């Protein structure tokens, strides 16, 4: 059987197929169709099916950007009319948010556009207190009036979110019942069902984001399913979620808020899997594509996650700007991002060289592509410094024009008073300094010493810049996977199914009843088990991870620690000890005499899927072919570097060198050795300081 994955990116749709019998991997790259992304998916699959039987496909993994693009207000993806029903007095919680502006010194700042217009926010008289006690009953007559009002609108989706509903969802459930009976064609989201935690703005925002995405995702999945059927593909379709796990497409259609950062997560999952394959525990994943670079961390083979993210927010110096996007409270693979990709444009602004945030994208692309691009990009700089093939890319499929790159950099060079090569080197140094910051954000800032990590470099441009970044962070070990440009798509074949559940507790630890906690976990497990069964996962493959969110009483931030199964007084106190330890690790101190509070009980339900394993790669694609090229390095200036084709290498070599392949180019700096490992990865080690 063959397992297939399709990763839709801004420029290319990548398909990777893994043959379980032979261990062979097939890579297909096709252009994306931004207006109807499912067409790109189908193109790629058709190309694959020209040589394979549909019945040989056992599963399809998929990553999509449709959710993010809808929220970014991309043309052609209309935001569906959405309503919000909330407690009387609180209709603007969703708009006021945390009352901050994202940019302090910009007098012309704007909030992100409201997903629910104020006229579509409905209030009802109801109130539940913090202990979950109903203080004001929701009047069925008022509810009926509201339903009738909604019937007269053209609202496509409704979010329901009441104050303190995490403590008692009875009124949200009443509204859901009434709406599902009277408005069967309208999509419904209840805040307690999508994010059952306290803090009203974040919960309501998660519900609203989900409500807005439901009609879009439902249509997308339906179209995709129909197309797959037409191609004779009956294998289950799994979609990557932001938490790094997959879920079956019909589940995603009703919980689309879980897939907003689906693509970038796949690269980190692939890195964790590569760690399994190569026996490496701690990894920084570095993904540099056409418009951005992204970094993530894998510790002890587990990708780092954050409990919340702002979708469609802006990034400043690698970090998300608080208040610039729509908060979504789900576990997200924690990524730092900056606008440094191959297509990122370098410009002189007020006498100083700036790189990004604008990218030349796929159209017109870098100047050297000869498609009309005039701006100097990072790819142009790499070409000028001899780091890219001087005649063509994509193994000869795409002609390039060094003279156009030089022309673009000449403009910059003149205003800076330097040579075009110096300008190109400056652009690369600035891009590298931006990227080294995101690598620091995911390591140093989290209290990890990067020197103990391996760097996995992928994306079309990642392997070109990785040596400079490794030197900056004093990392001595780099892995470049066999197909760096297809690595994220491969990641979709290495993931398991994840479903995350939360039950609020909010109690000081001495008040927590282990029996009740056990009940909470058991009931979440039951829901999870049923979901996995629906996804066709055999009970042998079910796994459960129980954790608790704990904090010092009254503090604003929780830490998530593992807890026992079953919950007993002893297992509970082990969790508390684990909390103090983690607090010391993360914040540098622990106050063991302070009272603690359990905020949430969390359960991750895992459905294990088979993973590909890289087969021994002893074949070489012919003799070691080597030529030399003049290449510029920061430490040496222009030198002769050996140039190889990926796959033709054997034994240990020492840089400077260039390794070219279809989907990427690896630049090996002087002072680094490189050797292919038995699985076809290129391993780079620092040999000299």
């Amino acid at each position: 059987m063959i397992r297939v994955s399709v990763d839709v990116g801004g420029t290319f749709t990548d398909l990777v197929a893994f043959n379980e019998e032979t261990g062979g991997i097939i890579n297909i790259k096709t252009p994306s169709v931004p207006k109807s992304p499912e067409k790109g998916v189908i193109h790629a699959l058709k190309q694959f099916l020209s040589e394979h039987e549909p019945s040989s496909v056992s599963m399809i993994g998929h990553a999509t950007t449709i959710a993010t693009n809808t929220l970014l207000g991309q043309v052609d993806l209309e935001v569906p009319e959405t309503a919000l029903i909330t407690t009387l007095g609180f209709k603007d919680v969703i708009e006021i948010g945390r009352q901050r502006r994202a940019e302090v010194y910009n007098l012309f700042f704007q909030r992100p556009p409201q997903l629910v217009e104020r006229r579509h926010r409905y209030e009802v008289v109801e109130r539940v207190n913090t202990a979950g006690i109903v203080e004001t009953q929701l009047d069925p007559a008022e509810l009926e009036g509201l339903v009738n009002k909604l019937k007269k609108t053209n609202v496509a989706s409704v979010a329901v979110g009441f104050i303190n509903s995490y403590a008692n969802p009875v009124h949200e459930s009443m509204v859901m019942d009434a709406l599902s009976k009277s408005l069967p064609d309208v999509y419904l989201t209840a805040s307690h069902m999508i994010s059952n935690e306290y803090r009203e703005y974040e919960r309501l925002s998660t519900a609203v984001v989900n409500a807005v995405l439901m009609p879009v995702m439902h249509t997308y999945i339906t179209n995709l399913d129909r197309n797959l059927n037409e191609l004779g593909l009956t294998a289950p379709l799994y979609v990557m979620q932001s938490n790094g796990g997959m879920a079956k497409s019909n589940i995603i259609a009703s919980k689309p808020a879980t897939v907003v950062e689906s693509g970038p997560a796949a690269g980190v999952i692939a890195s964790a899997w590569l760690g399994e394959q190569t026996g490496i525990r701690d990894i920084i994943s570095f993904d540099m594509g056409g418009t951005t670079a992204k970094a993530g961390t894998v510790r002890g083979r587990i990708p780092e996650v954050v409990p919340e993210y702002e979708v469609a927010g802006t990034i400043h110096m690698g970090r998300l700007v608080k208040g610039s996007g729509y908060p979504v409270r789900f576990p997200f693979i924690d990524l730092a991002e900056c606008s440094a990709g191959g297509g990122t444009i370098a410009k002189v602004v007020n006498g100083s060289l700036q790189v990004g945030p604008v990218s030349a994208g796929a159209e017109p692309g870098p100047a050297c592509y000869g498609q009309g691009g005039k701006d100097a990009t990072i790819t142009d700089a790499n070409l000028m410094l001899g780091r890219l093939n001087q005649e063509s890319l994509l193994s000869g499929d795409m002609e390039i024009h060094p003279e156009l790159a030089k022309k673009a950099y000449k403009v910059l060079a003149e205003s800076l008073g330097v040579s075009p090569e110096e300008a190109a080197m400056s652009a690369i140094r600035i891009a590298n300094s931006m990227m080294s910051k995101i690598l620091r954000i995911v390591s140093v800032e989290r209290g990890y010493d990067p020197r103990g990590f391996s760097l996995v470099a992928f994306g079309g441009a990642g392997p070109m810049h990785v040596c400079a970044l490794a030197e900056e962070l004093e990392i001595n070990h780099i892995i470049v996977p066999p197909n760096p440009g297809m690595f994220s798509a491969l990641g979709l074949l290495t993931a398991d199914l994840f479903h995350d559940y939360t039950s609020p507790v909010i109690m000081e630890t001495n008040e927590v009843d282990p029996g009740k906690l056990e009940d909470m976990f058991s009931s979440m497990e039951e829901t999870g088990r049923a979901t996995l069964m629906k996804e066709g996962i055999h009970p042998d493959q079910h796994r459960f991870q129980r954790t608790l969110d704990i904090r010092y009483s009254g503090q604003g931030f929780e830490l998530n620690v593992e807890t026992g199964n079953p919950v007993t007084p002893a297992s509970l106190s082990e969790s508390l000890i684990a909390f103090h330890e983690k607090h010391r690790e993360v914040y540098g101190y622990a106050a063991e005499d302070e009272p603690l509070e359990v905020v949430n009980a969390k359960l991750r339900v895992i459905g294990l899927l088979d993973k590909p394993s890289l087969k021994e790669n002893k074949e070489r694609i012919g003799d070691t072919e080597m030529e030399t090229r003049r290449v510029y390095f920061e430490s040496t200036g222009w030198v002769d570097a050996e140039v190889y084709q990926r796959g033709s290498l054997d034994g240990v070599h020492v840089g400077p060198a260039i390794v070219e392949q279809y989907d990427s180019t690896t630049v090996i700096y002087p002072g680094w050795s490189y050797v292919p490992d038995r699985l076809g990865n290129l391993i780079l080690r620092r040999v000299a300081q």
Partner: protein
Amino acid sequence: MKVDLTTVEVIKGALIYAAEEMGIALKKSAYSPNIKERMDHSCALFNHRRELIAQAEHIPVHLGSMAMAVRVGLEVYKGTLEPGDMLLLNDPYISGTHLPDLTMIAPIFSEGSIIGYAANKAHHTDIGGKAPGSLAADSTELYQEGLVIPPVKLVRKGVLDSDLSNLIRSNVRTPLVQMGDIRAQIAANNTGIKRVDELVEQYGAETLHQAMDDVMDYSERRMREEISAMPDGVYSAVDYMESILPGDGDVSITVTITKNGDSMVFDYSGTSDMVDRPVNAPLGVTVAGIYFTLISTTDPTIPVNDGCFRPITLKVPEGCMMNPIRPAPVAGGNVETSQRNVDVIMKAFSQIIPDKVPAASQGTMNNITIGGTMRDGTPWTFYETIAGGNGGRPTSDGVDGVHTNMTNTMNTPIETLEAYLPFKFKAYRLRPDSGGPGKFRGGCGIERTWTLTSPKAVLGIMAERNKIPPWGLQDGKPGGKGKFTLIRANGDTERLPSKCTMEIHEGDTLVILTPGGGGFGDPKERDPEHVRRDVENGLVSKESALDDYGVEIDPSSYEIIGVKRK
């Protein structure tokens, strides 16, 4: 020596990143929600001449004042600082803001000499004094406002001074929280030191110094270019703070800006004398307002450092409200007078660069401090500021319900407050018709209403714009005024003054209405469709649509019936 442009660019980025990382370390390890959740803190790096080199974008009012704290606060310790030492201070007459803002400064050494300083400022929830939260609205001198800390070596060669810590512990209401936050401030400076050390190792101290000078020169050059592009002239503006003097009297802040070539003089002559109410603004606050206006009306991408401010000369008469003399009380200078200071400067700037200056925003932070004991006897205190309307802008409406100008702190979630403190919330929503009418409407203010659910508490209010509304520009109308109403448990209703301290009891309800922003441009020129949309969205009444905008809207279909404009 000369450092190439790219190295300068890379070092500049690394220094800003270091300041941001300090902020993250502080936020992560802090104890109080004020810092952890609301991010009421700022971090910066200084060179060996004590010039501001890089700052993290946190709270604007901390910006100018931290530079002052570093410049003045270190004077006494010249030549006596050693590696591992850190100074703590909060004396507003040195550190430039108010007592709850604790400043921590650490020297950075390289080969035995100081090459720079890491510093941060954090708003503590209590620093003693007569009222919980240390923002009493009725202090008459500094000593009532809390513990005054001159620059002291709280950390000596890496060791926390236990005598000083004990002194602080004994003078504050929640010592655990304060000491936790102080520890976090120490951690933040250590992060800054570490990052600068790494840069020294990588580039050498000489290159680093030169690069820092180059960045400041660059900022200076950019700022001078921006100023040169403005028309020369003398521009004056005045604005008021209300109900300060006996008999509901107001005080005024006057600024006269003389713009000549590539420099500017800010003269505060004509400003009211300092008062025995806590609204005097120490010089650090005055300067912060100028810096904020300058950066935000020119080009916010100019790297913020001392170079930006070289074109500026300051004349603030000693003993006026904007440059008071000890022991005048200052608690509200930082939070209220600072907002008015920006309003005045913006008003003057609106004459210089009319297409870049918005109408007045809410012009207050609506400070609420409250504390008491829970039913079980546990003491509690809480502090918050409440957002309002943003002034209409030359090209767009003001934003509704958002923090503006000198503050940018977050709210505390209602579900958090109800779970931990004796509050029951009734409303948190936008205030219709509070946005000043204009071609570009001012943002709406907020209504925040809660009922006390514990036996009693001491409530402190320090706010503004309850009497004199935020002004409009270019025929735009003023924004709605703020209002505080207390509904007693027995139903009696009283309007509270904008600055007061009082006892409230279980069942009492406080209705807070925050001001809206002023409008920009003639409301009769507003696109009728935008008026219609505002009416349909319930932010403008149909009466206001007709009276202010000349647009008649059908109250049921929300369609435009007619447009009456001259």
